[in-house]
């Protein structure tokens, strides 16, 4: 389904588009996330010291075609609010495998 939708969207875009064509392409695109990767858990609790310093994030690909993924870490601002100070990269605070 993901491939079919992507092809449909691509075909619409490769022709001269009116606003209706673009809207339809975007409507078709709206179905895409259902076939996107799945990630769990949504919250990962780690300990700063001791045995709990390591955790895992599972990524599943429900499609038949391989996908490329990358993981990056940022430090959340102290108030945790959206629209606050820009997040700082925090890749150096963690060892990530595979790198």
């Amino acid at each position, binding site marked *: 389904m993901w491939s079919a939708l992507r092809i449909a969207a691509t075909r619409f875009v490769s022709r001269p588009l009116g606003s209706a064509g673009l809207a339809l392409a975007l409507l078709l695109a709206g179905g895409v996330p259902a076939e996107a990767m799945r990630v769990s858990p949504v919250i990962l609790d780690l300990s700063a010291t001791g045995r709990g310093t390591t955790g895992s994030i599972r990524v599943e690909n429900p499609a038949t075609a391989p996908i490329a*993924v990358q993981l990056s870490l*940022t430090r959340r601002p102290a108030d945790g609010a959206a629209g606050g100070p820009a997040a700082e990269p925090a890749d150096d605070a963690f060892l990530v495998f595979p790198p």
Partner: protein
Amino acid sequence: MFRLQWLGGALERTEAFHAAVEQLPINPNERVNGIRFLVTFLVNVYVSPERSAPALRVVSVEPAATAAGGPGARLTLENLGTRYAYLSQSGAVLRVRRPSGETERSFALDDDEIRRGYGDVLVLPGARKQVVLALPVPVAGKTLSVEIAGPPS
């Protein structure tokens, strides 16, 4: 599967991170020109001291209108603990009192009906946060209070 190991050493209180898992628009077997989608999932990562606990405190609560114009309560929350706190896990109860002092309604803030109005509120240690909760009853002219009973969240 990604494995993460904290390298930052001991902490005095929780630090919060986002792990962004990005699906890259790369497919070497495909030759198309058109829309490509970049899908990103955010995982909340918390790193806490081994013996840490939240201590959520309600600084103030007052009647307020929600963004949609409905009745609500504006809460100012503060976490004096060493671990992150979720409002829904704090055991907090909001009471609506008539001018006579009599309790009209009580709402547990982990109640589904109330949580639909705010999802949840995360307060990191040392942080203060304000939120407006939608309430199913009019509160203008009434007194609001919030009690956090039992052990903090």
